[in-house]
């Protein structure tokens, strides 16, 4: 048995170096203890795409023979720790196409620790995280989703803070001393070492029960056998119209039923139908054809198709008609147009609540210069 493995779930492309640095840190620290380690990316979808859920793994073992078991794998199961570098990923991820939605704690072993960087409370995260069916621990390293490690971004020590916290929650993989020793190579770095130690001291984990958390059944597909698959690489579209009662007269494009990528989304459009002029810019410009045309001519962003890019907000000519809101504010993918057409007053209250108290955006900026403002705020 290998000593242990760590899964790092992050969002491409801006967190790619952060994830890589964490995994390299684990390997270098393990070497300080005479163990061997490898690090590799979850291969399939491209972490070069903005917002895409992606993974890195670090595996630590005592011998080369033990390590061999991990050398030609995509995803080791039963990881000791799953590090989540962006808390919007707590809703699950499905970046590799046909496998459905993978709960964030799926590859975590029973009794392992989910280590999340977040400014949210544990209870708020558990609301989003699917029930595991086995107890595990949740630990939070306080902070927003960081782009640390990207050369144009401030180094906020997210990598070493997570490594310090890792040493606390899984000392059998790497000790704090080894982490600090690895940080100080090839050049001594007291500041980073102090950050790691501080995270080690501050991180606390709580136990999550087997049945605690989001009870929704994760999106799953039946993978057909070779005798059942349609020949000639044909995938039939889904006639969404059949599935939406009350949509007669509207238009819903046929979508590939098994290819949904909405966990790429860190924010979603909230639409004010009362001010919408039906100009159609959002529908026209959406790169994922995620707007359905409602029977009355309004455009409804379909949350099973939307990747949360924010282009609709940018092209909408009506002020505050479309507002992108952090995914944290939502627990389902229901149709906003249907909510609105059933109860306009109730919808207005819902919309106002979502758009006024919206949390900071993750993985993306609202306007040019926002990053400079954030830096200035921190220095104030």
């Amino acid at each position, binding site marked *: 048995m290998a000593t242990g493995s760590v899964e790092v779930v992050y969002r491409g492309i801006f967190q790619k170096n952060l994830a890589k640095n964490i995994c390299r840190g684990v390997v270098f620290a393990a070497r300080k203890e005479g163990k061997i380690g490898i690090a590799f990316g979850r291969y399939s979808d491209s972490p070069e795409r903005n917002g895409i859920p992606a993974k890195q793994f670090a595996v630590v073992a005592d011998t080369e023979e033990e390590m061999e078991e991990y050398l030609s794998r*995509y995803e080791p199961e039963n990881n000791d720790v799953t590090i989540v570098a962006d808390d919007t990923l707590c809703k699950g991820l499905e970046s590799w196409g046909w496998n459905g939605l993978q709960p964030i704690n799926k590859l975590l072993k029973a009794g392992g620790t989910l280590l999340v960087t977040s400014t949210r409370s544990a209870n708020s995260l558990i609301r989003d995280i699917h029930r595991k069916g086995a107890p595990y621990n949740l630990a939070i390293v306080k902070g927003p989703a960081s782009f640390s490690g990207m050369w144009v971004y401030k180094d906020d020590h997210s990598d070493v803070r997570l490594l310090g916290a890792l040493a606390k929650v899984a000392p059998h993989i790497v000790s704090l001393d080894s982490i600090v020793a690895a940080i100080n190579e090839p050049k001594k770095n007291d500041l980073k070492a102090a950050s790691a130690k501080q995270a080690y001291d501050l991180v606390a984990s709580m136990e999550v029960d087997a049945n605690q958390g989001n009870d929704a059944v994760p999106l799953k597909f039946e993978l057909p056998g070779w005798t059942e698959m349609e020949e000639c690489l044909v995938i039939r579209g889904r006639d969404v119209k059949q599935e939406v009662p009350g949509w007669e007269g509207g238009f819903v494009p046929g979508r590939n039923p098994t290819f949904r990528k909405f966990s790429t989304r860190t924010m979603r459009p909230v639409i004010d139908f009362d001010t919408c002029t039906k100009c159609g810019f959002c529908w026209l410009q959406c790169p994922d054809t995620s707007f359905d045309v409602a029977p009355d001519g309004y455009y409804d962003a379909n949350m099973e198709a939307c990747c949360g890019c924010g282009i609709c907000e940018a092209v909408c000519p009506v002020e505050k008609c479309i507002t992108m809101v952090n995914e944290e504010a939502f627990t389902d993918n229901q149709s906003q147009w249907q909510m609105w057409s059933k109860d306009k007053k109730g919808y207005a209250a819902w919309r106002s609540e979502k758009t006024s108290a919206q949390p900071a955006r993750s993985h993306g900026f609202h306007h040019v210069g926002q990053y400079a403002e954030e830096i200035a705020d921190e220095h104030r």
Partner: protein
Amino acid sequence: MSTVDAATRKKSDSDVAIVPRSETEELISGSEAIAHAVRLADVDVITAYPIRPYDTVMQYVSKMVADGALDCEFIVAESEHSQFEIVKHASAVGARVFVGSSGVGWFYAFEALAVTAGLRLPMVAMVGNRALDDPGAFGVEHNDALAVRDLGWMLSWVSTAQEALDTALIAYRVAEDPRVFLPCAISCDGAFLTHSQAMVKVPSQAMVDGFLPRYERGDKRLHPDNPITIAPQVNEDWLMEMRRQSDQAARRARDVLIEAYDDFNAKFGRGGEPFIERYMMEDAEVALVGMGTMAMPVKVAVRKMREQGKKVGFVRVRWFRPFPTPELQEALARVHAVGVIDRDFSFGSAFFSGVLANDLRAALYPARNRPKILSFIAGLGGREVSTNNVIEMTKTVFDAASGAGSDGQDSYWVGVRG
């Protein structure tokens, strides 16, 4: 700096005595290991065109160029066809070249691949093995590199990042040897090798300089001072003799490879046997045969079965061209049955087997002791081959060995949903 100058600026150092071993250890991927070999070989002309997973090599190489660690012409072409044509021409004028691609990108360069071998140009390429589109898929299959198997390309499959670095250095030495002058592709399994980081010993420049002589094309170099014509139009009058020369070069490549491995082992203290790796073969009754990172789950499975007293071994084919016929005949002479695990397919071929299985059957047909040969198709599109998959395959091979199971006239698809 012209490529001609670039090719002549290195000092001749093939006669240098053994240099003390001096290596650094770095945590790098298979792609980065290849990039280090390219840097250490002081390559003159590199062309790039992005396709996953090969593009990772191009990223690392371009970073080395930007950092000043490698002085070369780095050209991003507008397609793979031009990418391979440019280095083909550079190689003709005497420049050491590096190039690479994956999957259908490699196929887009196919005309250039064919003429490079025909012209006897020692191009060294990295193929990040990838499934052929369509459907679009990133994962590993070996059919991309295997497609050039009949053209004169030397083909190697490696299983670790260390082996990738070492093999790239050996590839330059063998390809550029005037007795050979053939192109060489080093195949690295997409994802499992190209995207996985392990500790790799990176040798010093002095060590590499002591192993790898400069590329000298001699009087075959295309240069105004050496007026020659290459690649003329010929027909039935000349072509067959030219093909026979290529055949002879491919035969000579065997001996040159053996020399190179001997020297590499002496100077670097690693490298192993040139053509195949034998794993627990001494007393094996049945054997598995495969290429690339397939070795990892197979070795784990072999160890598990050995613990239960089952005498199974594994032979990893490191060089597919030149095909290690004598080595395989010898290594498999004592086993009763062989299971060949192909990460490729050859639709409609003999027994509908994989490419490696077909070549192995041909190689063992004249052998005195002919084991039964079973073909397994596994791990296509990058699907993981599990230890249990290997154990199941081995049971089928043991059944065939006992005479109760397959007579080898069929192939098995492993891990496919029924």
